[in-house]
């Protein structure tokens, strides 16, 4: 779908492409992308486009990326297991304490059932599903322009301790510790996990591949309530020096039309244009609406060295989390301090 769209937009050569939104700053910084500020501002519905996409699509006050597809992070729970554990199957947890309590109850079912699952050795998965816990509690991991790491906060320490507590009490399967993302979706899909942070993509995937699994979707909560989400997906970017701006504009007009947004939604992405979102999702699984709302309230961290900091399998983010999630209480402090220093040093080296 994306390849087709891109080919349609730019003829054969990749004059334009869709790019994981998180990498827009680093590509823009390296001078590979075309400044499309004027094109963007000329769109009549510009102020309806996903703010999160535009925030990472902007580099030094110029726009280089426009929203193309969207995926938000949410919390999913297994309704059947909730029922068996004596919990209300229609009510998802809304605070950390509730997650913990529900997970314990489900875990007590035994028989290979675990309360909670997360990919404990996957940087990308945890920026997607773990950071929202911090955001919803009032913390953040970078400052606005990504020049400072703000890892070492009480919110971070609390959130890590929250996960660590569940690991220690055996609510999380042993495989989590070495899961580099290969089990991110599959673990919950087995039907033996009570609660798991996941993404909007999982709704389509579960419905299609595991139609018998009963599950609910809710927001990722903060410590005492509130909620947040990682606004992910792809940005539409244009290679610098292209001469096909006409075709590109025509493509965008179509992509952002109700028809385009509906087509997008049927292919598993959330809409990126707010004023037609509801209509585009009409007739689809209602749980998408929750994911779309999460998207609207979502955030996207901004960094030109995102890959080195967060996604790299050996980067400081996942090293810190893995150490802290699966260590003891005393290990949280040093791990967070080390992570803060390592990330700041990478930012400084690049800058």
């Amino acid at each position, binding site marked *: 779908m994306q390849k087709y769209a891109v080919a349609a937009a730019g003829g054969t050569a990749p004059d334009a492409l869709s790019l994981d939104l998180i990498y827009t700053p680093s590509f823009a910084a390296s001078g590979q992308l075309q400044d499309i500020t004027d094109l963007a501002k000329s769109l009549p519905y510009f102020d309806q486009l996903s703010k999160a996409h535009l925030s990472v699509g902007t580099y030094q006050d110029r726009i280089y990326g426009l929203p193309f597809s969207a995926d938000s992070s949410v919390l999913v729970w297994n309704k059947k297991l909730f029922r068996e554990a004596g919990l209300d199957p229609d009510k998802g947890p809304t605070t950390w304490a509730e997650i913990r309590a529900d997970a314990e109850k489900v875990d007590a079912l035994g028989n290979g059932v675990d309360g909670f699952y997360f990919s404990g050795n996957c940087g990308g*998965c945890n920026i997607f599903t773990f950071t929202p816990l911090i955001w919803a509690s009032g913390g953040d991991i970078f400052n606005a322009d990504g020049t400072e790491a703000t890892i070492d906060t009480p919110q971070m320490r609390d959130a890590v301790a929250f996960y660590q507590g569940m690991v220690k009490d055996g609510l999380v399967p042993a495989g989590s510790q070495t899961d*580099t*993302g*290969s089990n*991110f*979706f*599959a673990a919950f899909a087995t039907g033996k996990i009570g609660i798991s942070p996941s993404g909007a*993509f*999982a709704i389509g995937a579960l419905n299609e591949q595991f139609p018998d699994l009963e599950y609910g979707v809710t927001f990722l909560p903060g410590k005492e309530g509130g909620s947040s989400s990682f606004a992910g997906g792809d940005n539409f970017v244009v290679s610098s020096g292209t001469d096909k701006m006409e075709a590109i504009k025509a493509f965008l007009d179509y992509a952002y039309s109700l028809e385009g947004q509906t087509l997008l939604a049927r292919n598993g992405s959330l809409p990126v244009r707010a004023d037609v979102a509801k209509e585009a999702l009409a007739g689809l699984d209602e749980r998408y609406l929750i994911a779309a709302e999460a998207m609207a309230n979502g955030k996207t961290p901004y960094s030109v060295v995102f890959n080195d900091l967060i996604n790299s399998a050996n980067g400081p983010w996942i090293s810190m989390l893995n150490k802290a999630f699966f260590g003891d209480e005393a290990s949280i402090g040093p791990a967070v301090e080390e992570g803060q220093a390592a990330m700041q040093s990478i930012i400084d080296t690049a800058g």
Partner: protein
Amino acid sequence: MSPVLDTAAGAAPPRRRRRLRPADRLHRALFHLAGIIVAVLFLAPIAFLVLAAFRPAAEAVSPPLPPWPKAGPSLDSFARLDAFGEGIWHYAGNSLIVAVATGALTILVSVLAGYGFSRYRFPLKGVVFVLILATIMVPFQSILTPLFLVLAKLGLQNSLVGLVLIYVTLQLPFSVFMMRNAFDAIPKEIEEAARIDGVRGLKLLLRVLAPLALPGIVSVGLFAFLNAWNEFLAALVFLTDERNYTLPVMMMVVRQGRFGSIDWGALQAGVTLMMIPCLLLFLALQRFYIRGLTAGAVK
């Protein structure tokens, strides 16, 4: 080294069949017991993998205890493996092209060079020979970074041709050395006789000498093929377009899983496909393989 070998061969005492004493018999039984246990230990991982690859989808997620398919063998895993990217045969084809091309080009280059070094005299010959052998001292892992740029400049990055050139280069020190020795071992009289019959130059090499050096050629080709078939790091770095992936790199994609789930059955099927050609080639050409290994060892 060689005189010792000769003595060993010449002085081997004739074997006599004696009736074994009970102690010897026990000793022998223990020896074979140990032999069988250790051999089974060495073969077990391979056997587990191949057996497990034929389990149906429902069994593929559980531990291989027992490893064989309980509900009868199934090709599920292979079918799911084929759903990755362009289909597994596409990647097997890439690997085969790279391995065959590496084998062929290595043979061509090293036969020519081996013949040149063995039969001709030219300026700086010693230096050139040592230069080729010395490249074995430079592990290619340490020149990956510039190699990446050089290939990009030549337009050979992300291309199977570029990969083949690298693999052939890596094979050269061993192969040229092998072929030089192989030609050195051919008596000059044969060549003289052919020369008198008017056979010269390339024709002499191809028609008369190459058949005589065939064992060496097979060793060189076998090593080149297997090493190219199995190589991982260079393929991982230099191939960026998924369509060009060789089997090991493609299997790494399978191992990482897609959309947050990993298909162990497909992985078993893929690794089985990667291993089988190596095992068959080795079993068929064992003699040449070991000879190549020990020839390398003796230097």
